């Protein structure tokens, strides 16, 4: 008798979320099985990787990744265009790091101007992130959501301390919303509930359970993402059925393993490959645990992860 592999079927399904507009719009989610388990159900969309771009020069990025963007990274518009034209970026994440009170303190109006220019220059979907300063982000994201109206952007990150304002801005101008909690699945669910209780459409949320790099707590992120996905699929929990984002690049490109020189630590191997491998490995682990959207920095790491995705699907 022929062997029939057992199939696990689920009652729940991840919401399909479309980012951006026009022919460059991309859709993530929609699956009713664990990551890449297309043999057990439906996996209609591939995970998407967005390139990390900032409104200020990436002075704190290690040389191995900063040099890729030498000559373009002084200006977010050229930087974003460069990612799209040179590396075929499917989405851009514009991180408004320069609005942070300790990092230039640019005004919300300046940030909005930057967003507008980037949107005029690229047609791929745009993720607009604040500087992760809960008070300043509310001002910045309210203004930027307004100028981005009509482009179906992803706004973030809404957190427990500022979700009311950030979600209201995303809702008023018809954007998607990243809801971030700090490595706690119960608080992640709670935040989603509170956001939807404001009247925000639960199918327009993307969950950020907080990322971490390989060697720096990746297993915590991995397990939270995995449990979110299991709640969505096996318990049919409608508050946890959103796609998940892994904000990988910013966590990887600040650890010593991606910047320690070969002279100091020859046993760690070639510096350039080490950084690329670290980012790709972290990203791949998160795809395996449930992430559908990744934010990354090194184009070679992006290429490696995209090759992995294509092979798996």
């Amino acid at each position, binding site marked *: 008798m022929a062997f029939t592999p057992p199939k696990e079927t689920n009652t729940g399904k991840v919401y399909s979320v479309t980012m951006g507009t026009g022919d460059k719009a991309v859709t993530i989610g929609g699956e009713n099985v664990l990551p890449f388990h297309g043999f057990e159900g439906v996996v209609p969309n591939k995970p998407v990787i967005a390139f990390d771009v900032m409104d200020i020069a990436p002075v704190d990025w290690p040389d191995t990744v900063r040099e890729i963007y030498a000559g373009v990274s002084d200006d977010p518009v050229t930087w974003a265009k460069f990612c799209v034209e040179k590396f075929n970026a499917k989405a851009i994440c514009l991180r408004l790091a320069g609005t942070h009170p300790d990092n230039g303190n640019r005004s919300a109006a300046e940030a909005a101007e930057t967003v507008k220019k980037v949107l005029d220059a690229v047609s791929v979907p745009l993720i607009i992130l604040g500087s992760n300063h809960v008070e300043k982000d509310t001002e910045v994201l309210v203004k930027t959501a307004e100028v981005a109206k009509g482009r179906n952007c992803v706004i973030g990150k809404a957190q427990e301390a500022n979700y009311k304002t950030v979600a209201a801005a995303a809702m008023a101008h018809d954007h998607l919303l990243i809801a971030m909690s700090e490595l706690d699945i119960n608080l992640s*669910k709670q935040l989603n*509930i509170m956001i939807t209780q404001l009247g925000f459409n639960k199918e327009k949320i993307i969950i950020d359970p907080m990322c971490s790099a390989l060697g720096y707590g990746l297993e915590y992120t991995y397990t939270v993402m995995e449990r979110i996905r299991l709640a969505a699929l096996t*318990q049919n929990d409608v508050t*946890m059925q959103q796609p998940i984002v892994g904000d990988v690049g910013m966590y990887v490109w600040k650890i010593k393993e991606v910047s320690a020189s070969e002279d100091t630590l020859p046993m760690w191997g070639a510096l350039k490959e080490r950084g690329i491998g670290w980012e790709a490995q972290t990203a791949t682990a998160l795809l395996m645990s449930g992430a559908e959207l990744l934010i990354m920095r090194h184009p070679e790491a992006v290429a490696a992860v995209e090759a992995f995705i294509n092979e798996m699907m």
Partner: protein
Amino acid sequence: MLIIGEKLSIIAKRVREAMMKRDKGPIQEIAKAQFAKGAGMIDANIGPAEGVEDLMEWMVTTIQEVVPAPVCLDTTNYEALEKGLKVHNNEWGRPLINSTSNDPERFPILELTAKYNCDVIALTVGKGGLPADAEERAAIAAELMGRAAEYGIPMEHIYLDPLVLQAATTQDQALKVVQTIKMFQDLNDPPMKTVVGLSNISNGCPKHIRHILNEHFLTLLMYEGLSAAIADPAEIITTVKTVDILMNKTLYAHSYLEM
């Protein structure tokens, strides 16, 4: 766990009057309120309905006009049942007949169950007296399952009902019913579904303690794996959600009761 809203019963004066006058207003209002509180199905108890065989048909359409859920057709009247099944909208799930039992007079219900491919509650009582313990209930259940199989009814269409008795008069039966829920499930693989008429436990008790008995009894039953309860959703929803949390069936969040 499935909550089958019990409030549309001919025993209630307001419901009875609405049924007799064919006044949709109160029926629909009660059906909607139960659905909003978490009922996944609405019980329509029209009693024996002698001489008013089209009452169930009217109840089913009246309920489903306003609530997107299946109906539990609760009557011993064969003709009324069939009329109700004919108009039932299966878009939101199969209808449930309440009920067959080991009493030969209730066997024809199985014909209807098979004919309309619906679900059925099988009450584990015979024509004789009430079942004494879990073993006796399980033995009757096995007979009921065998008979249902003869009619070609799939086991997953059957909800076994152990018959809840009053705590105030037959106190020792409460624990026996809890044990029966466990035993029923072991009668088949996948496990048999189970249902109770929850508020029977507190029948005859003072009004202010009835909900306490109902909710605590439900906790014990849910622990043993109860699939469905005919009950007042407004009364039990907090218990259902909380037990689901404690049994790790839903993910905890501070607002779990609001979901």
